[in-house]
């Protein structure tokens, strides 16, 4: 659109209709940073889907092994990162072993690894056990072909992960299958659950190929993917689902109810209230624009 000619003085209506971007952007920065420093309570009723997911996780027996699909990277960290944190904290506290695999992005395993290490440190700092690679969790790395991988995992995890190696505490490599985490895994159902944290379409791939195999399936997706994934939750192909920032906050709220006095709140509690300010700003901006338009229309009339 042509920028309005600056020489003619603007009426209020025109002013309201053409606020300089700079100002808008500045306000947005403020709206998205200032609330981060305050802890603003937002009433929250976790969705049934999130509750189901949390209960499924919470009822896993200690020492059992779950499979974690980590298909997110820095670019969607705002949502998936929070979900991953919540998930891993729960697993750590319940003493559940987990194997992390990726079918989306060659960088994802590294991102997941760093996140887990960071969380483990944090848990230890607050008196938790934390986890040790190889003994409590293994990184199975990146699998190029999502469909084939899902099929193979369903058919025979030992085949799927057979070639994968991971680092022992002494720094040498060992076959992931021989690790304490996977040594008892013979078939798919030896995993107690599969939780997929994803910012891409690997969700549908996984559901199509791994649901209904007697393995409980949980999913943590971005806000955009929420509605389409909810369909599978309604048809009970998913045992639980948490979507977007709301999902993160739901998980944290639920954790707070169970793990009293531990670090339960993370991105969710920080980001969710902040999100409200951002969205509110958007709505206000739209209103201002329209009011401006009406005023100037009146002016013309």
């Amino acid at each position: 659109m042509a920028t309005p000619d600056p020489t003619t003085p603007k009426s209020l209506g025109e002013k309201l209709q053409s606020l300089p971007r700079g100002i808008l952007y500045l306000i947005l920065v403020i709206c998205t940073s200032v609330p981060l420093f305050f802890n603003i309570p937002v009433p929250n009723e976790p969705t049934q889907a999130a509750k189901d997911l949390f209960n499924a996780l919470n009822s896993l027996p200690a020492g059992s092994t779950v499979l974690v699909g980590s298909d997110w990277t820095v670019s969607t960290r705002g949502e998936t990162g929070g979900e991953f944190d919540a998930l891993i904290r729960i697993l750590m506290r319940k003493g559940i072993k987990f194997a992390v695999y990726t079918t989306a992005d060659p960088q994802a395993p590294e991102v997941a690894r760093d996140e887990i290490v960071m969380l483990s440190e944090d848990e230890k700092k607050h008196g938790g056990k934390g986890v040790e690679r190889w003994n409590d969790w293994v990184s199975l790395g990146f699998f190029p072909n999502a469909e084939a991988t899902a099929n193979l995992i369903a058919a025979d995890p030992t085949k799927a992960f057979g070639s994968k190696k991971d680092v022992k505490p002494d720094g040498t490599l060992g076959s992931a299958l021989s690790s304490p985490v996977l040594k008892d895994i013979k078939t798919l159902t030896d995993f107690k659950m599969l939780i997929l944290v994803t910012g891409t379409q690997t969700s549908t791939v996984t559901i199509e190929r791994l649901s209904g195999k007697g393995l409980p399936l949980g999913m943590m997706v971005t806000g955009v993917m929420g509605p389409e994934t909810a369909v599978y939750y309604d048809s009970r192909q998913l045992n639980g689902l948490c979507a977007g920032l709301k999902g993160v906050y739901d998980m944290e709220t639920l954790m707070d109810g169970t793990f009293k006095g531990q670090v339960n709140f993370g991105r969710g509690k920080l980001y969710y209230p902040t999100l409200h300010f951002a969205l509110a700003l958007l709505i206000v901006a739209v209103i201002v624009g329209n009011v401006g338009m009406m005023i100037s229309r009146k002016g013309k009339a």
Partner: protein
Amino acid sequence: MLFAQVEKTFWAEGSGSSALWLKILMAVVVGFGLTFAMLKLPARGRRTLVVGITFLAGLYWVLYYLWPQPLPGRLANGSPLPHGQPRDLVESVGFWIKDAQPVVSDFANILSSFLLGLGVFSIIRIHGRKLFRRQPDWGFSAVLFLAMIAMVIVGYVNYYQTRYTPGSSKLELPSNWGSWQFANDLLFNGLLQQMDAAMFSVIAFYILSAAYRAFRIRSVEATILLSTALIVIFSLMGIVAYEWNNAVAHIPGATTGGIAGNFSLTEIYKWINQNVQTPAIRGIDFGVGIGALAMGLRLWLSLERGGASAA
């Protein structure tokens, strides 16, 4: 334990065998030979050649779709079935098409990777000229080259060290990293990935200004766009949704299947999503799919003169 290699055929030679290297060498030589032969090709032959090659390439997938594939020689989980052997021409062709599939699927990918050099060349030419002709902003071109060279060197050295050096497995753990790993981590994770995320998040600003400008009750369309967007946004705003849904829940029968139950914000959004958004998008995609099909046919059969199909 050792596994035997599959038996040698005309196409397959034992890995590392001199026969293999010889054949590879010959293939390359012949390939380049043909290329230079093509330089001599008369103008008439050129179009025919390109059209023919294009057609053959496309023909594979069409056959793959239409030619009857023999009933599975092996199961989804890899265990073989007894009769995986062709009985007649139809089936042997079928088997051939089936076996070729994983190979052919890679072609496009490999070929376009070879073309990357052209892209890099374009960059080098543009910024190289700026740099050496000292055109305005030549400094930035220099920066670009530095960054590029650094990334290439660090990337490959790190790749080599983490793959092909003894004890490379240790490098999995940051605690054992050497300077190359740190350099790689700094350039790739510290900068490149971080800048990706930064640029991705810039969109938030643009969404704000775009919404501010576009969402005016100017026309019917704009109004529809605006109001749906607002409903959805509200349903995503925890507090609003929370209060609204509570209010709804207090309508008698709402939580037990009464009609009112459908008017919680989340349900409304879900309904729009499933009964308007989905079919609308499906409608567009259907048209786009047909368009792609038609375009595909025109390219495959080189029906358009000029443009991208063989001139």
